């Protein structure tokens, strides 16, 4: 068992893990709750491609058995891969990796308004309003003390004249926040891909800063000697050393120049065509981050042009938006996500990384154009989910989850389970998860 002092000096000061009076009150809390897994788990990191606005499952990954008005139903599906998963023809690249996808068609329990829905889809299971990313980081601990463990990646690359915004998450800071968990578990928000982390550049030369840090250590040692039992003092000294390491680690992690010079990578992630260049870049960055131990990366979809004029996100309320926006939204993520899956696989990282695709709710009603909390589709890939598999089903029209319904909180519990974390045992100061959370074993390979 790791001792508190070891923990403090080596891990605690890492970004994303911190000391609070109560957290440090007890050796056992630190050792038992922050580090060891509850059971073996495959997933070490999660990349969440968040579809802002609530994607219509009927046009993407859940083909309805009956369509009330064919005029409002412009897209077709194909059986894809060995598994024969039915996927909309809007996603030709994802169709080609269908055998890696686990499509969950029976999500329910979403809140059918955007702002609340966004908060709910990321925090529903938690009794203290902490986001899924914060819990993953809390449960697994930092995988790299030199990088933030929880990242929200937004922004556009230079030369993107296509997307209309940087991408964002409904519910704002709360959706990626720490809730009642220590605040440093909240996501580091990247809005500028060129300058992802504030204050990262040291005004001093390396040698000078190293000397300065040594002096800081010496200064703090005097104060610590007065209070040897206050462990967080050492932890704070260590946080400066971690920051120092981050100065090199973060720019290295965010520097994609070497990879993007390679034509194969450019094609794989779609870094050249306008519709995919920003999304592709962010997913490539996400891969670099998880490769370096970052636990949870959220990449939100962006506002894209409407083929029939204007722009929009996945909140498609009118036939014009369905016809004009959905194809562009699909195109924006199709190649990059398929590329990400392929890339992770080639690097042997797909087993330890979970990719999630989904929004804050589903859609139903006339032409699948209304908000719907009773059915939504997410898909996952990697991380030990059952590949080439469709879990659950909706009714004939695709409005209500009827077979193996899986609540938003169950999705959280299941994702955490795949990380080796049991929501029944995961808590902070004794407060943890909604007791009604169930793990959907059916989607785990």
């Amino acid at each position, binding site marked *: 068992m790791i001792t508190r002092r070891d923990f403090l000096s080596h891990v605690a*000061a890492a*970004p994303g893990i*911190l*000391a*609070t*009076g*109560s957290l440090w*009150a007890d050796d056992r809390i630190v050792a038992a709750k922050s580090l060891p897994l509850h059971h073996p788990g495959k997933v070490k990191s999660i990349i969440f491609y968040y579809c802002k606005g609530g994607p219509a499952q009927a046009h993407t990954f859940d083909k309805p058995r009956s369509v009330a008005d064919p005029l409002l139903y412009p897209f077709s599906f194909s059986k894809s891969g060995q598994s024969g998963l039915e996927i909309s023809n809007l996603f030709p690249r994802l169709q080609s990796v269908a055998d890696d996808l686990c499509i969950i068609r029976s999500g329910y329990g979403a809140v059918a*308004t*955007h*702002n*609340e829905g966004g908060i709910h889809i990321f925090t529903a299971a938690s009794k203290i*309003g902490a986001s899924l990313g914060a819990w993953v980081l809390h449960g697994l601990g930092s995988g790299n003390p*030199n990088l*933030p463990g929880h990242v929200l990646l937004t922004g556009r690359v230079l*030369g993107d*004249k296509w997307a*209309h*915004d940087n991408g964002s998450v409904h519910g704002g800071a*709360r959706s990626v926040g720490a809730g*009642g968990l*220590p*605040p*440093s578990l909240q996501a*580091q928000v990247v809005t500028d891909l060129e300058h992802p*982390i*504030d*204050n*990262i550049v*040291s*005004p001093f030369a390396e*040698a*000078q800063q190293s*000397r*300065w840090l040594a*002096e*800081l250590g*010496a*200064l*703090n040692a*005097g*104060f610590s000697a*007065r*209070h040897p*039992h*206050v462990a*967080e*003092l050492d*932890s*704070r*000294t260590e*946080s*400066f050393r*971690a*920051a120092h390491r*981050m*100065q090199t680690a973060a720019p290295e992690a965010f520097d994609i120049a070497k990879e993007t010079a390679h034509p194969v990578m450019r094609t794989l992630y779609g870094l050249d065509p306008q519709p995919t260049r920003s999304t592709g870049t962010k997913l490539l960055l996400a891969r670099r981050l998880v490769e370096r131990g970052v636990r949870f990366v959220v990449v939100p979809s962006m506002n894209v042009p409407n083929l*029939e*004029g*204007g722009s929009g996100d996945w909140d498609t309320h009118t036939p014009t938006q369905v016809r004009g926006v959905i194809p562009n939204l699909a195109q924006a993520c199709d190649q990059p996500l398929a590329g990400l899956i392929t890339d992770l696989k080639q690097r042997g990282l797909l087993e330890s990384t979970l990719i999630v695709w989904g929004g804050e709710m589903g859609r139903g009603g006339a032409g699948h154009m209304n908000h719907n909390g009773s059915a939504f589709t997410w898909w996952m890939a990697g991380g030990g989910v059952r590949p080439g598999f469709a879990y659950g089903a909706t009714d004939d029209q695709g409005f209500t989850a009827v077979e193996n319904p899986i609540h938003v909180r169950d999705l959280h519990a299941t994702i955490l389970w795949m990380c080796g974390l049991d929501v029944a045992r995961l808590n902070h100061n004794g407060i943890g998860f909604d007791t009604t959370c169930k793990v959907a074993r059916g989607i785990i390979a």
Partner: protein
Amino acid sequence: MNGVHFLLVTVIMTVESNHWLHRSPLVFLWIALIPWASAIEPASFEREVMPLLEKRCNKCHYPQEQRGGLDLTRLDTMRRGGDDLGPGFIAGKPDESPLIQVLTGAKEPTMPKKAEKLAAAEIDLLRRWIEEGAKDDSTKFSSEDVAFFEREIRPVLSTYCFKCHVGEEAEHGLQLTSRHSILAGGQRGPAAVVGKPEESLLIKAIRHEGELKMPRRGDRLGDAQVAAFERWIEKGLPWPANERVLAREKQFTISDADRKHWAFRPLPKDLPASWSIDAALKPHHERVGLTPSEEADRHRLLRRVTFDLTGYPPSPEEMGAFVNDLAPDGFEKVVTRLLDSPQFGQRWGRHWLDYTRNGANALSNRGPALDSQRYAEWVARCFNEDRPWDWFARVHLAGDKMKAFEGDDYSVDQALAAAVPLNGQRTFEDIGTQTFVLMDKLDEGVEFMGRSLMGISLECSRCHDHKFDPISQRDYYALLGFFQSSWFGPVPVNTKSRAEADAAVTKHRDLLSEKMRLEGLIRYASLKLNVSGGGRVNQWRESRIAILTPMDKRLRELEIAVLRVEIADAEKKNAKSLAADCQSALVERVASLNNYQPPKYDPKELARAHFIAGHKSGPGLIKRASDLQQTELVRELEQHLTYWEDERMQWIERSRFGGFGKSDPEVAELAKADARIEQIAGELNVNPAAQWTEPKKSHLYVRTDGGLRRAEELKPLEEKAKAAGLDFNNSANHVWAHPYFVGDARLLLRGDVLYPDKLVPRATPVFFGESKLELDGSGRLQLAEWLTANDSTQAALVARAAVNRAWQHLFGEALCRTPKELGRLGEQPELPELIDGLAVSFVSNGWSMKKLVRQIVLSSAYRRSSVVAEADLPKDPDNRYFARQSVRRLEYEPILNTMAWLKSGTHFDTPMQRDAVVPGAIGYAQQFDGPSLYNLIDRRVASISATQALFLMNNRSTARGIAADLINRLEIHSQVALPDVVSTIYENILQRFPTDTDRDFAQRFLERRRQQTGATQLKDEIREFVTLLLCGNEILYIE
């Protein structure tokens, strides 16, 4: 059919498993394999029929309700039947029995109403039972045995068990309400085995033998009660024949353990004369074997108390004065000075703001916004003037209905404070969610009253009776009515007169209604004009296409012209990829112009300002053209900008006025109405759907009686509006226009607005005793007075919550470490009698916060050093007995105060002034755990992270910037060497003199620096040393 009966056998086996377990496994197999199990076992009334009726029919057909005159809980009342269909069954003739007929649909009314039909197997069971003669096979008991049950068992069951083990959602699936359900048991198996108490789970649970201990949380049954249950099970669980099910809904009960909980007891009447904080702690120190630490040295003591009371460090002058003041009351004088400083109110007001979601707003999803700055200033004033805490609590419920503290008739500040509990989150998305979100908002009102004022979790009872505290769901809705009956918003009123305030509110509401009425009028009239003209709007729109075409084409030509210039420029600069991008755009634009199709114009399409003049998402054509010095193009583009904006406004106007222009005589009436709407909008200065903007100076926020309507009333009101030719719908404002509501709230089943139940009269929670409030209007004033009524349990809670938090702010940890949950779910304090003692003296000192703070700060406990003896640490590692002071990191505000003070040498009166002085002040809030706007915060976290370190270490304006400013302020000249100013630096930054070790460290720092860098710039050396202290640990921690 075979399958069905097979299933029934299995059901019987699980139900009466005790019975079957005694048969041999062979018998078990034999029965399972025989299809017609009924041949050997007739349908049982007790085990099968009764439970089925209970499950599917008796939510309506039980003795107290008897829907349709029918009671299906007993054989004789079933035989009697209901009002319409005569006897419920005819023995032996199922097809002629109404009970079966209504289930199969052979007779009206079909049953069950509003629920799923019974399964075929279930109907079949009833049919079979009637066929077999409809007999009651229930075990019969002697009247003595039943009397025993009534005397010894029933009262215990109903007092201790029916809080949870009742109805469909019974805890662990176990219902203890009928003999059958006890034998059937729950998820853990049968609760009792007939005649065998030793094998009965129920007995094990009430004996507290194993892991399962019942009743939960205290209240163990007495030995005699346990013995009675044993005898009862021995006797075979006798049960009255005429009352098979004792309860159908969970019963709220208050237990002795509830009454004995430390925070729910009344406060002691008075304290012994010898009582003091130190006297209360002493026996604990002796018991645990702790030696209290010495009093802290004078520097550290002054630093601690100055930060704790004002949030600022002491100045070197203050330090000098205190250290040299050898009079015995030196410390008392300091405390008096600090309590009298304006910063005391800022600091302690801030502690309170944590419990009000910052009293803040400015977030788009929280409407009507509060004037949080004014509120914060008022809070600071209340603390500085030491207004009594009980009054302060009352103001937060009914400040608008109370006299002003200053003696006037009315206080806008108090009305604003009263609005704080309603400052919940809210969106205006559509009517379905509006009611839902509205509910959440009210929820936060009850939550505030519980958590912030009383320190308990009232809001837990929204969906069900509180699982741990004596608060029922009914209590919750009884309180909700007070909040539902009131409203707050920005009203142009700045007065000390109640009459004027009321008039302003009335006028404000009238304006809102008038605006809504006019909006409805315009919409409706314009629809009629449009339709009567055969689609006038579209006709007009189509007429525009020919007019717009040449302009549209010209605009495209202009874009092409800009592109051509850009290509030429890019090629000149050899920017190949840019040129290629522009080229492909050019090709596409030219092709599209050659095949010109007019666009589908609508007001959105016509919004070309972004395209022409630019937007944050990209530069517009004008900028692109002017960057390349195309003055001609720029001039023409500017004309286009005006043209298209005018056109767009016309489109909007035509659609608003049914196809007419605003100045057309046909719509003169409507144009007048429109002008009036604009005028009203200006006067109201409020749009709940819009982003929050700074209020007009004359607009102050008030709370007043009369709230929003209940969800279920929206529909009828809407119909009423329609009948009057008005359309209230499709407007974010529409709930505002409905008549205001004063009345009781409706209980919501499972807390869900979609399932409203009975009205619950406004009242205070039953636990706190009978209180007959004479409600005036919303009743908030009476609620407020009740909350702090002399010698009441609720007032005791308010006092305990306050003293517990004051202790927390002065020791870093509260006496009860869950300061917004003093109820049974919270942590048990080690020293409840100390909380009670402080509370009694707090109340007897007129709820004076300053006296309370003074009392704690002057205790020896507060003044002790935070250095702990090695031997004492293991005896009290968490410092729960306060034999030493704590080491704690400063919160964000004192950190920022310190930086501001170092830079300027000033103690600021308000946070605004302070923030103006420190560059990047907001960064400190983000890095050092500033409070969230979303939650009621009961403790600040003190996080440690690398981004914090980066912020201090690498940002030019933080540590290094402040260091430079401090050096300038202290007028340290560039010829001065570090050793000469070490003392000044320590006094200013750490508020103490340097020790020999510190001087030695400074000396060695210099040597090492010179050795490694070869540089000897004296000023740089000092600056780096100061920066080091600013980044170090000691400055951020209170000892």
